[in-house]
């Protein structure tokens, strides 16, 4: 068996008794105390995730911006230094190669990619920019990445970084220090809560991880990360997004700037799709009967199997079975999810399932 990569926090996970699983070639904590307890901690207090398996790819050189304009669906020229943006990466067909966050720094860009897509993304990035003067480097091993998420995230982090975090807006980041160590603090996350993603040097990660836990953060694993993002109606690559699905179908058109000045890969296909209409759309549903919908379960619309569940669980916050599914674009109201051969009534509901109260 191929040996699994370990993050700089592996020792911390073992010390905390985490259940470790293989994820995209990495040995990652799926849970510590339990998924529900960790989920609840993020919603009501604050959770701390090790997401160092995520890939970091730096774009440098005179054509770095041009390269990203070609590769990303978002108009990167609209990002200011210190601003981050969610984007899709598409094929010419409009199918989705990955969903990423691009950070515009002074002089270069950092793109955070999904762990499972890192190699594929690098080949796509390099293969489509060979005519440009850009250096694309995989810096995944150079960074540890923590996600501190929840209503108390700001008050937990503030004493460690000294600065005024209240002025750091959503999708803004600051190249600063945490506990005297160089760090990038970004007000981003994947849980539907306020919070930060903190980029650190690998050697500094364990110390800061411990201090954040001492300050009140609850360690949380990939299991809770998945239920949190699902309640918040956020896409997971491999579930809601893949190369056969466009970002418009996935409902992330806010990250697709079809009017941007330079053409991006997939733009023509997505424009056509917008004009002609979508073949499928992503919807949220709640089960009205008993059961749990899971990825791959068929969906019946007016009695016919015409859709598929992409993600599903029992929502720890709502206490009800919820899920996301692709269905024909005009579908509304009542559907059925076929759970292990048994049709269970369900109802399409607006997304997100959960949104935090804005203070």
């Amino acid at each position, binding site marked *: 068996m191929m040996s699994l990569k370990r993050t700089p926090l592996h020792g911390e996970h073992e010390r905390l008794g985490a259940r470790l699983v293989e994820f995209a070639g990495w040995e990652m904590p799926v849970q510590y105390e339990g998924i*529900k307890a960790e989920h609840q901690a993020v919603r009501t207090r604050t959770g701390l995730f090790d997401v160092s398996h995520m890939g970091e790819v730096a774009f440098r050189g005179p054509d770095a911006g041009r390269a990203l304009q070609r590769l990303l669906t978002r108009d990167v020229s609209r990002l200011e230094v210190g601003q981050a943006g969610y984007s899709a990466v598409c094929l010419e067909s409009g199918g989705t190669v990955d969903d990423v966050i691009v950070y515009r720094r002074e002089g270069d860009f950092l793109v955070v990619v999904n762990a499972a897509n890192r190699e594929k993304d690098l080949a796509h990035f390099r293969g489509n920019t060979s005519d440009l003067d850009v250096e694309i480097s995989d810096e995944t091993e150079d960074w540890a990445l923590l996600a501190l998420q929840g209503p108390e995230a700001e008050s937990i982090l503030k004493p460690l970084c000294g600065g005024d975090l209240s002025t750091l807006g959503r999708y803004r980041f600051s190249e600063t220090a945490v506990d005297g160590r160089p760090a990038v603090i970004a007000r981003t996350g994947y849980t539907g809560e306020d919070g930060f993603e903190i980029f650190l040097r690998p050697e500094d990660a364990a110390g800061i991880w411990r201090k954040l836990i001492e300050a009140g953060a609850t360690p949380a694993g990939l299991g809770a990360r998945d239920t949190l993002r699902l309640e918040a109606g956020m896409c997971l690559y491999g579930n809601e997004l893949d190369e056969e699905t466009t970002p418009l179908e996935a409902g992330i058109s806010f990250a697709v700037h079809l009017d941007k000045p330079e053409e991006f890969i997939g733009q023509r296909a997505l424009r056509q799709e917008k004009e002609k209409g979508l073949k499928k759309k992503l919807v949220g549903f709640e089960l009205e009967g008993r059961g749990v919908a899971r990825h791959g379960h068929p969906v019946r619309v007016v009695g016919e199997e015409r859709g598929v569940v992409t993600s599903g669980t029992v929502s720890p916050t709502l206490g009800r079975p919820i899920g996301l599914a692709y269905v024909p674009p005009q579908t509304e109201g009542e559907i059925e999810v076929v759970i292990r051969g048994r049709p269970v009534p369900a109802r399409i509901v607006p997304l997100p399932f959960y949104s935090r109260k804005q203070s």
Partner: protein
Amino acid sequence: MNVPQDLKYTRTHEWVRIEGDAATIGITDHAQDELGDVVFVDLPEVGTSLSPGDSFGSVESVKAVSDLYSPLGGEITEVNSILEESPEKINEDPYGEGWIIRLRYSGEADLLSPEDYQRLLEEER
């Protein structure tokens, strides 16, 4: 892991308490721990006839689903309907309030003693 000495076990991590011709069946402490937070139990109908090894339902946790296999043959006389509203009883008390079905059993089955089950857990580790 808690392996009570007064029960019998299966290789698929169910437990059985036999009292006369009645058998109570649930999943073991090890099984509930492996599954994590249980969020749903698919219970069978009372009156269903089972042969040893038949699947009679499933237990779902936040992340996974696990089929339940009957260690014995017989007819289901009772299901633990508390689990419909409170599936977490399986995590909290797998050998008590988290029991799943009761059978009037007829067929003999290949059950493990507590010692054999303990050995199986050690082998699987």
